[in-house]
């Protein structure tokens, strides 16, 4: 299944769906199904191949048919991944969880407070803050990451977890989402009522607004988590020693070993790659209710 096939496919649609009211029912439906099955196969086969490859030993990987199993060496491979170089892979996994988990949690809290402030209060400079949020979508990562690297190295933060955690706290896209969610879920009247009852602004935020924003907050957290988990340029730049790396940087490094030093880690890289998908997949499936709305809301508003 290649791109060319996909495109040919796209071509056929236009031809077959030409104005012909009679053809729309059965044949049309079947055609749609064929198109979707082909597209699904294209989407799934690389993942299938990865799963199969992770179960093979070296000989199987190089010599057997890539799309079917040949021996079951998954556990041996997993053990090898986790024991290679004193279990550095486990360290990378823990780091990825730390950066994505703690960073996103802090970032989400800040974003919810900011989104609430922007959506439900009038204050001087409000539109300027919002302009910063939207404008920052256009800033290339290199323009931020390189000076951050220099600044962090001056205060000795380079190559520490802080170099990853601090930038995660400020996420303009999260703020944008939080503002949209607040507008959709927190009514003015309720806030007024709470104020009349004598609740302080902080209390209103922590015990009413945050509770109403559970769904929105979960979405913001999920998207930030995925974003940090997938980050590449920032960790590559600010994390130099391998004990602080993330899974992505570690796998990148392993995949370059073959040309760099002649050590072929292909089998490790593939098993490691499969393992690094697992937390992401579990999280996305468990929270699919949230991220569906998040993905679409973020794009449409």
């Amino acid at each position: 299944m290649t791109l060319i096939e996909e495109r040919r496919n796209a071509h056929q649609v236009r031809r077959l769906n030409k104005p012909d009211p009679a053809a729309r029912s059965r044949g049309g439906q079947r055609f749609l199904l064929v198109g979707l099955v082909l597209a699904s196969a294209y989407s799934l086969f690389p993942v299938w191949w990865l799963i199969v490859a992770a179960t093979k030993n070296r000989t199987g990987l190089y010599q057997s048919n890539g799309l079917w199993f040949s021996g079951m060496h998954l556990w041996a491979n997993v053990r090898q991944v986790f024991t290679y170089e004193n279990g550095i892979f486990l360290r990378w996994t823990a780091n990825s969880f730390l950066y994505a988990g703690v960073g996103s949690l802090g970032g989400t809290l800040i974003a919810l407070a900011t989104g609430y402030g922007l959506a439900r209060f009038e204050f001087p400079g409000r539109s300027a803050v919002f302009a910063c949020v939207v404008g920052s979508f256009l800033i290339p990562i290199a323009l931020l990451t390189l000076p951050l690297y220099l600044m962090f190295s001056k205060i000795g933060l380079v190559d520490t977890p802080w170099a990853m955690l601090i930038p995660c706290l400020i996420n303009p896209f999260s703020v944008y989402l939080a503002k949209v969610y607040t507008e959709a879920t927190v009514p003015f009247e309720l806030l007024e009522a709470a104020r009349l009852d004598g609740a302080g602004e902080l209390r209103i935020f922590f015990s009413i607004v945050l509770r109403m924003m559970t769904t929105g907050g979960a979405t913001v957290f999920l998207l930030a988590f995925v974003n940090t988990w997938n980050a590449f340029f920032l960790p590559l730049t600010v994390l130099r020693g391998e004990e602080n790396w993330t899974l992505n940087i570690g796998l990148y490094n392993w995949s370059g070993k073959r040309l760099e030093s002649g050590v072929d880690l292909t089998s490790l890289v593939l098993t490691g790659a499969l393992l690094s998908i697992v937390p992401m997949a579990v999280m996305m499936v468990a929270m699919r209710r949230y991220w569906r709305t998040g993905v679409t809301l973020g794009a449409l508003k």
Partner: protein
Amino acid sequence: MIRSQRWKGAAFTVPFQLGFVFLYLIPIGYAVYESLFVEHQSGLGLGGSTQKFSGLDNYQQGLTDSAFMNSVLRVVLFACVQLPVMLLISLLLALFLDALSSKAAGRFRIFLLVPYMIPGVVAAIVWINLYSPDVGPLTPLGKVFGLSWNFFAPSMVWPSIGNLLTWHGIGYNMVIIYAALQGVPRDLFEAARLDGASEFRVATSIKIPYVRGALVLTGMLSIIQMLQIFNEPALFRNVTPQTVNDSFTPIMIIYNQAFNAGNYHYAAALSVLLALILGLASFLFYRLTAKEAD
């Protein structure tokens, strides 16, 4: 709103504002400042180096640096081919899903979204191994059809990366377009069908115009991302450094200048230039699509 309440509202945004100043504004200012200097080596570089103000020299050098300008051109050309292909496929799949019953659509939607769940770096690793002549299934598959394709050949690297990005991006874009399609009032279709419009006509005259906004937005976000492409070429460089050299994309050049050549000032100037190019590209894209709508 009462005065004191206003300030309390503003206080909620203070942590973000502070963070924004320290993590966005100051770094950008710092990069701009640094870009105005050059490093001067005294003697053979043994006596250390000093910074010297050089005005816009770094920018002039960047604009006439053929490696940098070529890399920009390379990614722009690539974006002009890959983005329309990807968005077209996503649009078609969204239209397909929209024509199915919601139960069947839900099942396909999950399949099509699987690539989106996979981190970009892992996606690149998987495809690089699929392309690999040693372990990948695509090379033997080509032999069956009498094709001896080499996915890492200079002429094939961009199509190979393009396929990887398309695979990775279709699901996400499809979901956004599909969500926009769900927002089209259903009675519009019924009315058109009663008037004798074919399904194709309904799609082109009602559905596609209706999701224009979503398409423009995903297109814009994709352009911004594409000009900054780094991960995929960096991983390709791991296996085929001859084809994917260290000045393959603008960000790769910037990274190299900063961390391998140690030329931070020039790297800063190039990243400011890239930001300006990004702004210009987004502006042009916006103008172009806004005009078409009139």
